[in-house]
């Protein structure tokens, strides 16, 4: 199960809506081993694409060095799908490389940049295997 606080949940949704129709991406870091996402870090989608996302390689390095210094890890890795469901694509599965992370997918296909609900789902992706998990939003 992914436990995430309301403010972080809302920040992910806002980012996804803002970048629609391109895919938005980012992470939520947390203390190593805590499984608790605490630090929201929106990233630039260097691919700038409606069907693909990739962190900029230099920003990726800076992010991981910072997490290393603070004894953090990527607890959540999120991105949006803007025309399809919030479920990992073959590409997502193939490229998933953080076995300990919760992979959050948000779909903005229904309301785009506008107000309105989104699909918000969370998955583990380990060795090509996808397992959906419950999302529990903790009201702050």
């Amino acid at each position, binding site marked *: 199960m992914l436990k995430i606080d309301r403010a972080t949940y809302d920040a992910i949704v806002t980012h996804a809506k803002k970048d629609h129709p391109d*895919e938005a*991406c980012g*992470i939520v870091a947390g203390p190593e081993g805590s499984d608790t996402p605490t630090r929201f870090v929106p*990233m630039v989608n*260097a*691919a*700038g*694409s*409606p*069907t*693909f*996302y*990739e*962190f*900029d*390689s*230099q920003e*990726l*390095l800076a992010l*991981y*060095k910072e997490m290393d210094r603070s004894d953090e*890890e*990527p607890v959540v*890795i999120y*991105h949006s*799908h*803007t*025309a*399809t469901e919030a479920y*990992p*694509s*073959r*590409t*997502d599965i*193939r*490229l*998933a*490389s*953080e*076995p*300990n992370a919760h992979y959050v997918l948000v779909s903005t296909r229904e309301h785009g940049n506008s107000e309105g609900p989104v699909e918000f789902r969370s998955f583990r992706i380990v060795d090509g295997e996808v397992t959906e998990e419950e999302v529990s939003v903790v009201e702050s």
Partner: protein
Amino acid sequence: MAIDVRIPTILRTYTGGEKAVSGEGSTLAALIDDLESNHPGIKERLIDGSELRRFVNVYVNDEDVRFTGGLETKLDDGDEVVVLPAVAGGSAATVPVARG
């Protein structure tokens, strides 16, 4: 000649769980061969044919080696090498060949 190599979580199965290992080599290609001799299997995760894998980033002293000569990037004693898998994906059924 010792070069410090930071290993990402997903490749630590090859290093007995170690976050960093030490290696040798005057180029990145030579370093990866040296790593392979101590951590068999790791090379295949980094290299596809004669090139660095598209979704593996390698940095020497904070510079992405794609801009410094790729596998031919020269290394010196004390250099720091960081390996990071790209964080990437998306709804596309196939991945773009070119970078960003």
